[in-house]
């Protein structure tokens, strides 16, 4: 179990004698259950990595509390370190050494003796499918191979929980899949996995529960299905063409539709397409078209969708994750 209450962190930056304080994380409450894959979502700069680094004992919090499987972050950081593994977004392997050497030294750093460390390295090489390249230097690895090694390094000591910071960023689809295969396998072995991502589709299909963080605050929390159900109904997408914003058509359409009773919410995430949140898409579409026609606007396309996590994010923050 990982629990945080009111976790806070701010950074000060000085520019020309002027100090500005950036509140990166402002009071985050999280509850991660044992054995689940917990997704921590948010745009770049939302405070995901800062929260993760605090939980991994790399950054002292300014305030708040956290316990990781019974170890208190403030009073027992060493206890937290023994219980967790952490894989940074950039990884952290050395070009000139081999995967086997990295795994052995990692195990030694966790206090294991030489032979035990070698044994653990051998087991990890088998489990993570590294044998093909385990004795070649890391600089020869592909992005996906390196990432698998990073994760193997993070769990060499069989931690209770594994923290992964954006594990699939910059990987090709196949490597992304293989990362998630490993994550699922670890969960199957009883490990709790805490993963940050800004790929909402991935989070939707792979996480048991998610929290969405924006500007350092949690804005939504629950299972992906619960969160989507909160939005309920359908999403009608009205495409207005590439020049809609320039010609003022997007704003005009938004204005014309704004007061319609069948509309729960309207968002204009991109310049050229409206997202309308409605009860039933099939009955709303004719009404939408009539309203637009009345305003003299002809849509380029109309599309009906089930709400996705993108819509959850959009309704909670007013932006799409790609925009922020």
């Amino acid at each position: 179990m990982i629990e945080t209450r009111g976790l806070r962190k701010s950074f000060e930056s000085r520019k020309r004698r002027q100090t500005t304080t950036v509140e990166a994380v402002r009071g985050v409450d999280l509850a991660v259950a044992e054995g689940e894959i917990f997704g921590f979502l948010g745009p770049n700069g939302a405070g995901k990595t800062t929260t993760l680094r605090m939980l991994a004992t790399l950054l002292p919090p300014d305030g708040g509390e956290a316990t990781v499987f019974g170890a208190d972050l403030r009073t027992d950081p060493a206890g937290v370190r023994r219980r967790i593994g952490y894989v940074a977004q950039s990884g952290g392997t050395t070009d000139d050494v081999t995967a086997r050497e990295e795994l052995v030294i990692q195990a030694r750093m966790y206090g294991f003796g030489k032979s035990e460390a070698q044994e653990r390295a051998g087991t990890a090489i088998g489990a993570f499918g590294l044998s093909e390249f385990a004795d070649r230097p890391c600089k020869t690895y592909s992005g996906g191979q390196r990432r698998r090694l990073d994760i193997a390094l993070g769990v060499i000591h069989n931690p209770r929980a594994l923290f992964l910071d954006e594990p699939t960023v910059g990987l090709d689809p196949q490597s992304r899949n293989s990362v998630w295969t490993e994550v699922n396998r670890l969960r199957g072995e009883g490990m709790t996995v805490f993963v940050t991502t800004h790929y909402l589709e991935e989070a939707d299909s792979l996480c048991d529960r998610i929290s969405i963080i924006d500007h350092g605050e949690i804005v939504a929390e629950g299972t992906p299905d619960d969160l989507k159900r909160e939005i309920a109904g359908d999403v009608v997408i009205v495409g207005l063409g590439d020049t809609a914003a320039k010609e003022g058509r997007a704003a005009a359409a938004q204005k014309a539709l704004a007061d319609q009773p069948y509309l729960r919410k309207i968002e204009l995430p991109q310049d050229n397409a409206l997202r309308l949140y409605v009860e039933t898409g099939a009955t709303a579409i004719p009404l939408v078209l009539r309203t637009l026609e009345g305003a003299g606007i002809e849509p380029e396309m109309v599309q009906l969708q089930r709400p996705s996590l993108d819509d959850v994010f959009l309704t909670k923050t007013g932006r799409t994750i790609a925009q922020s």
Partner: protein
Amino acid sequence: MKLLRDTWLVYQRQMLLVLRSPGWIAIGLIQPVVYLLLFAPMLKAALGTATYSAAYRIYVPGLLAALAIFAGLFAGFNLLGELRTGVIERFRVTPVSRVALLLGRALRETTIMVVQGAVITVMALPFGLTANFGGLLLAYLLLAMMAMAATAISYGVTMSIKTDAALAPVMNTVSQPLALLSGVLLPVALAPHWLRSIADWNPFYWAVTGMRDLFAGDVGAGAVWGGIGLTAAVMVAAVAWTSRLFARRVS
């Protein structure tokens, strides 16, 4: 003891990396060897010593000290590189001793400098350098302590400055006067009184003077033990300071 075990572990790993690319040791030797070949031969006449051997006994210790001061003070760049790759962060999440992460690295730098110092000494032998073995060992101890102290100072400054780009100018500003005031090129004894009184406050000046006495075979000279004591004190203080910074500040 955990600190010793962890330091040894980090040191072994660091030395493994050094042995993987030994070319850097040779590259670090280029400058001192150039001075040894192209500058040192002038010193017999310039210093007015009776023999080449005497001139080299004055010059080679200075060259070793210069190596420790310059290579040591610029060691922060290596730390900076490793901080950027995320390797240090990866180890900081493990229960390994934070101080060991720093000490193992500083010991690597020290080892490289002592090896380079030994190569320089051997290369000076054909030019007529003579030295007694016991004195030489103590001189290397001084060299190692200077190297460790300079490396620790460099690590500390690296972690203290706000922008990485400032590291080179800061270190240039510190290392040049520090080296000259230690008398690495010419003995400070040749300097006017005011310059000598400034040098008196520089622990590395005592270390260099002590090394020269050791090369001359004068193991009992006051500067030898004064140099060892002062350098040890500076080293301990620098390591303590930088360890605290490292444990607290590295992120």
